[in-house]
């Protein structure tokens, strides 16, 4: 579906916020943890060919936002999209974060906040106990922070160089939250560490995984995740997986 771009601006560092005006029907289907396949080029060219998966970062009225980091050609090209233009987005896709727990700990590594923020916000608004641990290399890439602050979500920031918040890795104080349900999104080494700590602490833990995707709807079988129950498709059976079933 083609949606009108409301804004597409640099938040900080290499991180941008893209907001589109969606329709009521699409917006009502969105659950926390889902993603969209976003076309990064215009429809009259074929390169880069495939759409990019981006987590649904925020929803306000019919406006849907994506917080994205410039990584390669596709995301670089996406920064050139201007307000008033249309972008093709297929959404919402994937499964979602279970909504029936009372205490949630969100563990975001870098741009992983893109896949977790909406859940934190909605669960907070639903009166649940929500804490976000947000880790980054240094202060200049903390693009999620203004949004966490705006919605008053309890957040602990960790930077590797100590330029903001606590110095160290986001996994540093995890055991203190063992009676929470953990949901983590970020780079693979971080997810691996979270999974291990969750096992030691016997905490319930979910991981939001990131795979190369072609279709986003379960048709191409390209986005395989290795699990204890065999191969699963990240785009349909995921992106949210129980940590104990994921094989790294």
């Amino acid at each position: 579906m083609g949606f009108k771009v409301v804004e597409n601006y640099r938040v900080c560092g290499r991180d941008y916020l893209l907001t589109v005006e969606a329709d009521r029907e699409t917006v009502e289907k969105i659950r926390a943890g889902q993603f969209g396949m976003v076309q990064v080029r215009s429809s009259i060219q074929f390169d880069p060919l495939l759409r990019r998966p981006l987590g649904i970062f925020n929803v306000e009225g019919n406006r849907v936002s994506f917080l994205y980091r410039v990584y390669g050609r596709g995301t670089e090209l996406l920064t050139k999209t201007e307000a008033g233009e249309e972008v093709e987005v297929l959404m919402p896709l994937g499964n979602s974060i279970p909504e029936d727990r009372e205490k949630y700990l969100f563990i975001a590594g870098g741009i992983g906040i893109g896949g977790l923020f909406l859940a934190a916000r909605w669960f907070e608004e639903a009166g649940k106990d929500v804490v976000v641990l947000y880790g980054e290399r240094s202060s200049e890439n903390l693009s999620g922070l203004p949004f966490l602050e705006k919605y008053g979500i309890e957040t602990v920031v960790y930077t590797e160089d100590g330029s903001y918040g606590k110095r160290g890795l986001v996994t540093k104080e995890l055991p203190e939250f063992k009676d929470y349900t953990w949901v983590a999104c970020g780079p693979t080494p971080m997810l691996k560490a979270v999974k291990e700590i969750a096992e030691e602490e016997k905490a319930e833990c979910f991981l939001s995984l990131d795979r190369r995707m072609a279709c986003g709807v379960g048709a191409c079988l390209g986005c395989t995740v290795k699990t204890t129950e065999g191969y699963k498709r990240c785009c349909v059976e995921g992106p949210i997986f129980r940590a104990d079933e994921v094989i790294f």
Partner: protein
Amino acid sequence: MLKTELFGVEFENPVWTASGTFGFGLEYAPYVDLNRVGAVCVKGLSIKPREGNEPPRIWETPCGMLNAIGLQNPGVEYFVEKIVPELQKYRCRVVANIYGSTVEEYAAVAKALKGVDGVDAIELNISCPNVKKGGLAFGVDPVEAARLTEAVKKATDKPVIVKLSPNVTDIVEIAKAIESAGADALSAINTLLGMAIDIRKRKPRIKNRFGGLSGPAIKPVAVRMVYQVSKAVSIPVIGIGGISTWEDAVEFFLAGASAVQVGTANFFNPKAVEEIVEGLESYLNEMGYSHISELVGDLRE
């Protein structure tokens, strides 16, 4: 204007979806009106369920992509029991794409589809380059390809389409051998074998090392092969390879295709088939054709 009859089966239109790019059709049902799709060629089926290759399995390339899925599928039995009944709720025709690693395996899958309501034809994948022991051997050798075609024809009552591999020296020779063996139609082309390398890790981008190249990048190769094959045989040829717009589809019809399959384009534009169907209709009107069949092979040389 677009209704097409091939090997005794009537299709609402000649725009189909290519195997492996549209799942079992149902995955796309929320986004695509399956009643507007001429036929769904389902993901390649084998006699037993198959896990497929180790990831990573896909890699984007200029105007194309490489894949080495490894023919992951739930097996023909599951397909017949669970998926066919779901597909029967739609008007689209269903083509069962099948493969095996021996003639006997192919014949067994074909047999499992014998008499199954809701399966309109069989497409033999003799060309998939992904599985090390897979179909490649059949697709590159005219004698083996013909032997396989004969065995499958014997095992089933359904029309048999044989899908050609482009990874051969002389596609015409193989096409003719398959026609003589009794195939009802040919489809062309499957993916072109390719490779991409991560220069930092100094490793192949795809775990399987090689992958099949598809998408707009392969279209000129596909048009050429469809042209050569359709000149050489008298059975219908179904054009595949990089078709993303109605203009692309028209090229294939002019080159001699009686129908087309849309593959990779579904990934980046789920509406591709519907848009192509609409575009074809207006093109025919504009150019003064009264039926799509008049366009087939109507190349001015």
